[in-house]
């Protein structure tokens, strides 16, 4: 991809991220921080490519550590976000059945 196209992608993605967060209620800030933490777990595909193209032992070791850490980021980020949002679902259901005042 050419440099200028990459720059356009960067700019548009930056605005997208800003717009998504700007309308989030405070109660979802922690789950959303956790969710965005999961999303940058996409670094996993980069680490896979880096390890997949590694030739020397040093490259393989660093690449292996990279994939290991990236998989931890992605899976851990998903699990904790899912757990947090699961509670919101439960409390929303309870609200509908009328537990309030």
């Amino acid at each position, binding site marked *: 991809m050419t440099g200028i196209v990459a720059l356009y992608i960067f700019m548009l993605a930056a605005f997208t991220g800003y717009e998504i967060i700007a309308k989030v209620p405070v109660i979802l800030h922690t789950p959303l921080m956790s969710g965005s933490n999961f999303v940058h777990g996409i670094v996993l595909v980069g680490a896979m490519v880096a390890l997949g193209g590694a030739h020397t032992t040093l490259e393989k070791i660093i690449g292996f550590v990279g994939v290991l850490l990236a998989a931890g980021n992605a*899976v851990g980020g998903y699990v904790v976000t899912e757990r947090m949002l699961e509670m919101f679902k439960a409390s929303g259901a309870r609200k509908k059945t009328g537990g309030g005042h």
Partner: protein
Amino acid sequence: MDSALSEPGFFSPRLLIDISYFLTACLFILGLKRMSSPVTARSGIVWAGAGMVVATLVSFLYPGMSNYELIIAAIVVGSLVAWWSGKRVAMTDMPQMIALYNGMGGGAAAAIAAVELYRAAYANVAGAPAAHSNVVMSLAVIGGIIGAISFSGSLIAWAKLQGVLNKTVRFGGQKIVNGALFLGSLAVGFIVVMHHGADPLHVSLIFGLALLFGIAMTLPIGGADMPVVISLYNALTGLAVAFEGFVLDNAAMIIAGTVVGSAGTLLTQLMAKAMNRSLANVLFSDFGSSGGATATAVTGSMKAIEASDVGVMMAFASKVIVVPGYGMAVAQAQHKVWEMCQLLIDRGVQVKFAIHPVAGRMPGHMNVLLAEAGVPYDLIADLDEINAEFETADVALIIGANDVVNPVARTDKSSPIYGMPILNADKAKNVIVIKRGQGAGFSGIENALFFLDNTRMLYGDGQKAAAELVNAIKAAG
């Protein structure tokens, strides 16, 4: 990616990868969008997760890949450990867990940069022509530095919140040392770019200095500021991932990384703003180190009260506002507190929860805990909504909150928290503070609220105190 559509054969691996990455980017953005509303939030993470699975599977088809056994082994081990730890971590420990997973992402971005830079360095030493342009090399270096800072910094943030590391290290000239580490890392990075990879020693030096900087930068920051710091490192990891995405020509990484980078930056600003401080102030002000000493001494005495008296007071009140803080999280008291509130609601008492934007250790931390206990959203109010209501409240019940209700923030210009918006709990007719001991809070600042005439202290662990209050309200008849 620009060659994909011109390649012959419709089902070339490259085209399939590009289309899948496009799908992944769409799923990420739509997923995050759905996460921004409580009703659709749960499905949002599932959408984003589906995107991640698609991207990971299709990446095995990359042309010219080898080391499949290593890749699969690393994914399996990393996933299992993270899955196991993520499932068993307590809700109260979520902030440091997010810090840990975020640090891992930063480390992975740094590892990608390291593979590229070491390869360039060895090629340069061997006299081979440069494989990357200076622009690509610069992006690799910058992404690597940011990733390394996020990695070591997040680990320190984790250690501090987990209680592994209790000390807040500060010494004279610290900022100069930190600045030297950061600029040194950049300078060596510049040399590496200019000399097409230079040599392995220079590459090692970039990462060594950046890792040290991450540690040195995070050590002096007090635990009360950790939410802002974790959010900042989250944004930085996103940025590092985006930069490495440019290096690898990977659109999914560029888009996902940039979205997280900008969203995280905005979130960090919102959090710093909630404390009425600039981000620079959070990072470089040594907040909380001298706070207690410089502020005007608070006069008066704290007056204790028994749980039975508090129970009666609340049972016959018409309006009670509960202000939870980190102490409630530590004591795991959210379920007992909600049980107590339900008793009050059944008696016809109006109950509301007042949440300060930076209560706890992360924005929305209290909301997550209250949601876990089953508190309906409409009982939870944030600072702007609730502040006018304290004057009409009979009881403000403070559970493990401290700085966010300290009236000194309104009055004492010498206090380090002066100007921070606070919950006006002191305006309530009666203020009850549940607190473990008489010491100052996390930031080390004395709380003038505790010494007011209308304030009573209920000493004890949050959960035990709430249990006592439940019994007291039941006994009130």
